[in-house]
């Protein structure tokens, strides 16, 4: 068999694990061979003999010799991921799926709307875009979390807010006395933006309910359906458009997605669950 085996993972070394919040950790890995992917694509990570699950990297797509993935403890495999200490060998298959079309984003104002652990894959997009900031008119980043403590990447935001091309707004559903930013759901931040919604690009990633209300609010504000990019979460096993688990109508989300524009999927059943 000289042809590539699509089911066989490549070896990655887990260098270290950083705790972001009680349920979220970031895994720093080094691939055996340089690993290329594009922002928006995902990988399947195997814990040897335990299981495999899909994640979008949270590090820049420009970095080929390292990869970071931020993972929320949500099920059997992610629970096992959280038990890893660093030093283990992991298996990685991919990259799979569609990317954010950065050439379409060029010259435009780009809104990045994220909630909870949905900020993780968006970090990949933001870091990738900020490698060439001059390509984009402005990045409006609106992030939300349940409480101030639930924000992942605590050290990152100061640097991000200081970037000349970035307008960073954050909200916490429930604030505490230390919180000086917005209190309430993340969609409230959209009302604070002074932009031309009719020409802007919007990228949304987060829990289903946030994606749903975020998208509806963007539409109300005048963002075009074809300019709203959604990263869909589905049960995925193979990542190759074969196993059927991620079927959504006539799409396999793993292959045709996970990044779709709202107008591509708005008529499909159950897109928000």
């Amino acid at each position, binding site marked *: *068999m000289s*042809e*590539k*085996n*699509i*089911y*066989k*993972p490549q*070896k990655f070394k887990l260098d270290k694990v950083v705790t972001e919040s009680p349920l979220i950790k970031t895994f720093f890995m080094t691939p055996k061979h340089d690993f290329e992917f594009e922002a928006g694509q995902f990988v399947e990570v*195997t*814990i*040897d*003999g*335990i*299981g*495999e*699950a899909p994640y979008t990297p949270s590090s820049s797509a420009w970095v080929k010799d390292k990869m970071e993935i931020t993972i929320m403890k*949500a*099920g059997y*495999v*992610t629970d096992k991921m959280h038990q890893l200490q660093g030093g283990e060998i992991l*298996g990685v298959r991919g990259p799979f799926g569609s990317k954010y079309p950065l050439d379409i984003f060029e010259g435009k104002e780009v809104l990045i709307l994220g909630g909870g652990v949905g900020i993780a894959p968006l970090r990949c997009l933001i870091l990738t875009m900020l490698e060439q900031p001059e390509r984009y008119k402005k990045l409006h980043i609106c992030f939300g979390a349940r409480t101030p403590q639930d924000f992942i990447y605590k050290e990152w935001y100061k640097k991000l807010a200081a970037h000349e091309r970035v307008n960073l707004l954050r909200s916490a559903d429930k604030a505490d006395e230390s919180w000086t930013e917005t209190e309430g759901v993340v969609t409230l931040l959209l009302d604070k933006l002074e932009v031309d919604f009719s020409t802007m690009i919007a990228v949304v990633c987060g*829990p*289903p309910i946030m994606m749903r209300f975020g998208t509806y609010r963007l539409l109300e504000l005048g963002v075009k359906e074809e300019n709203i990019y959604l990263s869909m*979460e*589905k*049960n995925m*096993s*193979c990542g*190759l*458009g*074969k*196993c*059927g*688990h*991620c*079927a*959504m*109508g*006539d799409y*396999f989300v793993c*292959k045709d997605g996970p990044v779709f524009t709202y107008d591509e999927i708005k008529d499909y*059943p*159950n897109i928000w*669950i």
Partner: protein
Amino acid sequence: MKIYSVPEKRWNSFLQSLLETYRTYAPFLKYETVDYEELIPDKIDSIYYASVKPTTPLKIFHFPVKENVVKATQKEQRIIIGTPACDLAALDLMDSIFLDDEFLDIYYKENRENTIIFGKDCYGHDESCHCTSYGLTPYPQKNCDVIMSYDENNFYLQPISGKGEKILSEFGLDKEETLEELPYDVSKKRETVKSDLDKHNQKLPDSEATRKLVEREDKEELWKKHAKTCVSCGACSTICPTCHCFLLIDRVGFEKIKNWDTCQHPDFERVAAGEDPLQKLYTRLRNRYLCKYSYKPDMFGEIACTGCGRCIEACIGEINKNELIMEALE
């Protein structure tokens, strides 16, 4: 067209010598059901050529129930005798999925390459058979290596692939009498079975009409009614020649087992956070029909039902796909 007319005795001696090189499977009758069994010399005389379709679909040879898809395995050269046209038609879709240019499944590819298929006419039909409703014929026309018919005197072998030509010449069957077309009675029998099937299923809508019926959003009660006896066992998918869903199961050493799975199982689409688009039983039942008649035609240009009727025969809840579809017409 080139058809070799092979007397029964010569055919049997061909099978005898075949067994020295190839692992061979053929249909046998056992307790009133027909299924593939491995052929051994003593059983050559009892191959059940009059079969309609084996219980097991052809897919099991190319897409086994469980297959280790990381560890390289030694694949055997196999010959399958007596595959019906419905199962051969299913190969179009299975090949589109597993042999696609972007993500080629080398295990499926090797299984396909190592298998020589003798497709066979159906000499009757089961109660649930409905291939002609979807434009297929109860005799093979494609997707096999040799098309095989028979009457009381001879076997008629028409090679339609390079592999088919090769296997017949390897054993000298190309030296047998050559016909330009099938004998009248054999052709006549084909047409009789076809028209019997047309008559048997005259009320069943064609694939396009079926698509419109299963896509209708006002039939929730119909799906709920038929789902009442569904126990989510997945037998309908297991015996379906086109159902291709699977789950990768991990084994130590980064090995992965490609294991049959089905959208009829609870949790098939459930994500870790708990959301599940197919949580309700009736939505799972309907999903299988939508997949076959609506989604797959959009994705691959053809429906994912070849009318073999096995899902009707296998259902322990006695859910009859054809009755459900005809009820939707009302």
